[in-house]
C-alpha cells in the first residue's frame, strides 16, 4: 500500500485555479461507515454507502455530470471497464451536482445505456474523500478502504477541445489491476480533463 503522504500532487498550470496542497491523511482512510453519513444518497433518496454492498470487492467511484460532454463521451469506456472488472471491483457513478434530480439521473442512465448503480453526492462528501476535481475522474479504494488512485480514466483528452484519436495511457485500468494485487499504483494522482466539480459548490 502506498502511504498517503506519498500521493503526488502535480503542479498546475492555470493560475486561476486554487491549489489544494495538502492531502488530509485521515480522510483517505475510510471507515466502513465513514462517508455514507456525510451525505451520499442513492436515487431513492436514501443514505448510501458504496462500501456496504461492495462485498469485499475493491470500489471505483466514477464522478460524472449529465451536462459534461467529456464525461458523457466516456460512458462506453466506463461501462466497458466496469463490466471487465465486474467480479472484482464495484463501480459506482457519482453525480456531484446537487441540482441533478434522481429522475434526471435515471433518464441519463437509460440514455447512455449504463448498468451501474448511481449515487447523488449533493454535499460533495464523496468528492472530498476521493479528491475529485473534474468530471470524469475516478477514485479507486482497496478492499480495506484505502484510496489507492484518484484522477483521470486515461489520457484521451489532452485539454478542452483536444482529444487524441484514442488514449495512449490507461490509468484507471492500471490502477485497478495494481489495487487488486495489493501493489502500489505507480501514478496514483493524475489530473483529468473535464468539468470542474468546484463550479458546483
Amino acid at each position, binding site marked *: 500500500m502506498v502511504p498517503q503522504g506519498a500521493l503526488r500532487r502535480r503542479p498546475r498550470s492555470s493560475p*486561476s485555479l486554487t491549489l489544494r496542497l495538502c492531502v488530509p491523511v485521515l480522510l483517505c482512510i475510510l471507515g466502513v461507515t465513514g462517508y455514507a453519513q456525510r451525505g451520499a444518497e442513492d436515487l431513492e433518496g436514501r443514505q448510501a454507502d458504496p462500501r456496504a454492498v461492495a462485498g469485499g470487492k475493491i470500489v471505483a467511484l466514477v464522478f460524472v455530470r449529465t451536462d459534461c460532454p467529456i464525461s458523457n463521451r466516456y460512458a462506453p469506456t466506463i461501462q466497458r471497464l466496469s463490466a471487465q472488472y465486474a467480479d472484482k471491483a464495484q463501480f459506482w457513478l457519482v453525480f456531484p451536482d446537487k*441540482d441533478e434530480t434522481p429522475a434526471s439521473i435515471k433518464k441519463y442512465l437509460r440514455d447512455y445505456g449504463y448498468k451501474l448503480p448511481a449515487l447523488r453526492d449533493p454535499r460533495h462528501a464523496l468528492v472530498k474523500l476521493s479528491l475529485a476535481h473534474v468530471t470524469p475522474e475516478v477514485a479507486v479504494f482497496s478492499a480495506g478502504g484505502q484510496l489507492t488512485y484518484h484522477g483521470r480514466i486515461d489520457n484521451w483528452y489532452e*485539454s478542452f*477541445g483536444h482529444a487524441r484519436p484514442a488514449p495512449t495511457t490507461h490509468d484507471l485500468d492500471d490502477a485497478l489491476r495494481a489495487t487488486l494485487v495489493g501493489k502500489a499504483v505507480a501514478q496514483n494522482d493524475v489530473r483529468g480533463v473535464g468539468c470542474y466539480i468546484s463550479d*458546483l459548490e
Partner: protein
Amino acid sequence: MILRLRILAWPLAVLAGLAMAATLSGRQVAGPASSAQPAPQISPVTFNRDIAPIIYHSCASCHRPGEAGPFSLLTYSDVKKHARQIAEVTQARTMPPWLPEPQELKFADEMRLPDAQIALIQKWVEQGAVEGNPADLAPLPKFTEGWRLGEPDLILKVEKPLVLPPQGTDTYWNFIFHVPIEKTSWVKAVEIRPGDKRYVHHANILVDREGLTRRRESEPGAGFGGMEIRIESEVFDPDSHLLFWKPGTVPYVEPEGMALRLDKGTDLVLNTHLQPSGKPEIIQPSIGLYFTPHPATKLPMLLQLENDVKLDIPPGQKNFVVTDEFTLPVSVALLAIYPHAHYLGKDIQAFATLPDGTRRTLIHIPGWNLNWQAVYRYEEPVSLPQGTVVSLRYVYDNSEENALNPNHPPARVRGGNRSSDEMCHLWLQVLPVDYDIARGDPRMVLQEALARHNVGKNPGDFEAHYNLAAMLQARGKLDDALGEYTAALRLRPDDATANNGMGAALLAAEQPDKATPYLLAALKSRPDYFDAHYNLGYALISQNDFEGAAMQFRLALQVHPEDAKAEANLGSALAEMGRFAEAKTHLERALQIDPSLSWARDNLEELNHRRN
C-alpha cells in the same frame, strides 16, 4: 452542337458567414462597462453587470437549448456551474472557437474575445463568481428560433437518418439530397441544419449535377462514408461558392448577382464531420433553400492552392514546412478564404505579396485544429492586383507531442483523402476585376494559370493535366489540349472523364474516327455517362453511322430524359435514316423542352420541307 467540358476540382461548396452576433435581433449588446479595464478592486466583478454581457454576446447563441453548445449559458446559475471551465477555455482561447490571429485584413463576424474580457472573466472567478445586483442584469437577447432566414422556399430533409455510434473515432459521413425542382433555379441563400448540432463538427455542401455520388450508396438514401470526396463538376461549379456550416454559423444571403445555380436532377451532398457523444445519436440533417429570380451575373471563382505532393512527413518531425506560391494572372477581389489541413497541421499561414512589394497577411492560424476549421469571409473584399503572388506556408507536427496525431507511435504520413492522411489546401473565393474580356473569361485565365502551375509542380497531377487540357480546348488550342489529355490518360488510362475529354477534343479537331475509341473507353468505365453517349452519338453521325448514333442519343436520354440537345440530335439522326415521323416527334419534343434551340427548329423545318 455543344461539346461538354468538365473541370475536375476538389469539391467545394459556399460561403456562409460565421456570424454569431447576427442572431441578436438587432439589439447591440453593449460590451461590459469595464471591458477596457479590469474592474476596480473595491467593487467586485459581478455576473449581472460585467459577465452577462460577454456571455450573452459571445457564448449564448450556441450555448442554449437546441444549439451546438453542450450546456446552456443563459442564467447566473448556468454560468456559475461552469465558471472555472469558462475561465480556462477563454484564457486558452479554445472558446469561443476562433482560430485566426488578429490581423489588418478583418474577417466578418469575428468571434475572438478581447483580452480585457478574458481578464475580466478570470477576475470574476477568482473573486468567487459573484452574482451582483439584479438591477444590473440586461435582458437576455432575443434569439431567432428555427430557420434563421425565415421559412425556406424549399426544405430538403434526409430520409434515412444516420445512427451515430456511441463511441469510436470521429465519423465522416455524406448525406445525399435530391433537389426536387423541374427547371433551373437560382439560390440566394442556403441554410444548413446539420441535425443535432452538438455532434456535428462541421458540414460542407457539394453540388453533384450528374448523380455520381449516388453510386457510392449501399442502398438509395443510405449515404456513404468518407472525409474528402471529389465530385466532377462543370466549369467553375458550384458557381464558385463555399457552402459551409460549423457551430455558430449563421446563414448568409449572397449579394445580388452571386446566386448559385441548381438544375433539375441536381443532388446536394452534405459532407459532415461527426463526433460520438457516448450514446447513440440520430443525425438527420436538413437543408433550406432560398430562391431568387435573378440569375448569377458575377463571375466568382474558387482558386484552390495546394501542395499535397510535398506531403511526406517523417515520423517524429515536429516542424515540417510546405509552401506554395501562385502568381495571379488577373486582378481579383478576394472575398473569402478556407484553409484546410488534417490532424498534423499546426501553423497555417497565407499571405499576398502585391506587385509593389507590400506583403499582406491573408490568414494566420498558429494553432490549427481541424475540429474548428471554417470558411472566413473578409469584412471588405481584398484587392489583389494582377501579378500579386499568393503564398501559403503550412507547418505540420508529426511528433508524439501532437496529441491529435492519428498514429501512435508516429508514422510516416503522406497526402491523401483519409483523415489519417494529410492535406495542404487553401481555397480562395475571388471575383476577377478590371479584366479584358478579349483575353477570355477571366476565370478560365485563372484556371489555366493554376493548372499550369500545378502541372509544373507535379507532373503526376492528373487533375492539373486534365484541367489544363479543358481550358486549352475551351480557347481552341486543340493541339495543346490533346497533349495534356494524353498526359492525363497516361496517368489514368481508364478514367472516364479524361477519355471523354480526349474524345471531345478530337471531335472539335474534326477527327471523329479517332475520337470513337476514347469515347467507347469512357463508356466502358462509366456506362451511364451522359456526355460520352452524347459525344459518341455525335462522332457516329459524323461518320454516317446514323443507327449507331441514334442508339447513343437514346442511351444519353435514358440518363437525362429532359436534355433538349440529345433529343434534337436523336431526331436529326432518325431524319438522316429517313424515319421522318419519328424524327419529327423527337425534334418537336426537343423544342418543347428548349424553344430557343434554333438549329433544332431549322432541322425541323428542313425535315418538313423534305417530307413535302
